[in-house]
């Protein structure tokens, strides 16, 4: 038993090191002005500065990309919720039988990789005309699509825990109007699901590179790809910032949802 615990500890230590070490190297590269070749005991504590991050963050290119990414993320959250909240509520209250239909459609983005989707987008939208893809905000509906699997799941799970149909019938039979029922019964019960779905969608959009890059939209990841060559230090520090932000979001979600083992990868796809 003791021997086995030893092995278990060894496995966990090695894997934990694998998780942590790349982040340390990235942080050192971002914040220490010492080339790797000159790194040694004597230079270990020298020239640590966050200047590169500050300079990158106040640059026009960064602000332009960040502002676009944040707007895209917020719009995607809003559009996604506008479509999914009524659909999920409808399925739970009116038509339980259609749940597997909606679930099936919401899982489909998993089998269409972003790179294949963007190929199809440029093919399909040729018919509509180029005006649609000219605006960077044309990305919004596609971002809603690629985050469908986890946004639907979040909302669905939050409603699965309660008998919404009975609650709604009770509210209606007590004389509450539909709008009152939605405000006082349905939405409060969905709160956790809505928060989860919003953050997951937000984080997905912030990190999405494939579609934006092939449609030539200048989002944050596109900024990272572009300025990697001429300002590696500043770009890496922005990349680290992005990693920290998405880590915080996913960590928070894991806390909130408490459903261990149910996480489904999103950003990496």
């Amino acid at each position, binding site marked *: 038993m003791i021997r*086995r*615990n030893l092995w*278990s500890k060894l496995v*966990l230590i090695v*894997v934990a090191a*694998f*998780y942590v*070490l*790349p*982040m340390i*190297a*990235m942080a*050192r590269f971002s914040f220490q002005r010492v*080339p*790797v070749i000159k790194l040694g005991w004597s230079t270990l504590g020298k020239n640590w500065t966050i200047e590169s991050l500050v300079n990158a963050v106040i640059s026009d290119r960064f602000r332009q990309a960040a502002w676009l990414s944040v707007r895209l993320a917020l719009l995607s959250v809003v559009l996604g919720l506008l*479509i*999914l909240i009524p659909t999920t509520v*409808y399925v739970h209250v009116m*038509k339980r039988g*259609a749940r597997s239909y909606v679930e099936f*459609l919401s899982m*489909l983005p998993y*089998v269409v*990789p*972003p*790179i*294949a*989707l963007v*190929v*199809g*987008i440029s*093919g*399909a939208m040729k018919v509509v005309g180029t005006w649609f893809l000219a605006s960077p905000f044309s990305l919004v*509906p596609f971002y809603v*699509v690629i985050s*469908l699997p986890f946004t639907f799941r979040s909302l669905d799970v939050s409603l699965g825990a309660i008998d919404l149909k009975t609650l709604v019938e009770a509210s209606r039979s007590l004389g509450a109007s539909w709008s009152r029922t939605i405000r006082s019964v349905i939405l409060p019960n969905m709160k956790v699901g809505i928060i989860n779905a919003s953050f997951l969608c937000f*984080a997905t959009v912030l*990190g*999405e*590179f*494939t579609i934006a*890059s*092939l449609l030539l939209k200048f989002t944050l*990841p596109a900024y*990272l790809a572009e300025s*990697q060559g001429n300002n590696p230090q500043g*770009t890496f520090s922005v990349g*680290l910032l*992005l990693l920290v932000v*998405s880590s915080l979001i*996913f*960590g928070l*979600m*894991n806390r909130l949802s408490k459903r*261990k*083992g149910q*996480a489904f*990868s999103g950003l*990496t*796809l």
Partner: protein
Amino acid sequence: MFRQTKSWLGLTPFTLFVAIFLLWPTLSVFRSALQPVEGSSKPAMLEAISGQYLSAILYSVRLSAITAGLGAVIGTLVAISAVSLNQFKGLRNALVGYSAVAANLGGIPLAFAFVASLGMQGLYTKLLSVIGINLTDLGFKISDFSGIVIVYLYFQIPLMTLVMLPAVDGLKATLKEAAASVGATPRQYWRSIGVPLLSPSLLGGFLLLFANAFSAYATAFALSAGSSKLVSVQIRFYLQGNTITGKSNLGYALAAWMIVVMVLAMSGYLGLRRRSERWRR
């Protein structure tokens, strides 16, 4: 009958949305993929599984299979270790929490982290050379096959840990005690009880990891500055070079094959997941 059709009406906005922004682009991939490439009578999808185009698909399949295999084995070991160290609750929670985070990290920032670690000027490249291991002399490059495998493992291992934890938790202590009380050695226990019970989750997890690696694009793109041999990165090349080469249908064909591979892998995963969940009830 009328009520039946009417009650489906509430799903119209959602259905239309998915149809326009997902199904229509997907169909248009297949429509172009079934048309011939310039100067050929074969559909592009057939052209894409011959010669150099096939090698891009096979390269991706091989890479995805290797990262999925390694990720599945290591991720499962992590899950078993975490469960067997159950008395250290904090450790386990930290590990599971970070797994949920790391499984979703990826894209360009992750590529940066590994360039800073194992790139030509990487911190650990330097540290290893101090103790006499020269990665460059060994032919290791972060943008090559083995480099991409290591980077992908960063999100593959935690994803597998998340998939396996419920299954490993389900191997109840009573099973082990029962096996021991009838005289089974730990080896016999794992061979006859542990592995058969875990195998649907293991295989399912492998397929999920395979699909996850196969569809990835940004990380490999950033590691190789757009020159990777992976099929996802190659598609960009055919799509942007379409006016010159007249071969844009090949880009559609490669994308169509990607979707086919993804459908196979994901339906296998979902089928196996259903089976392993049945065991746990």
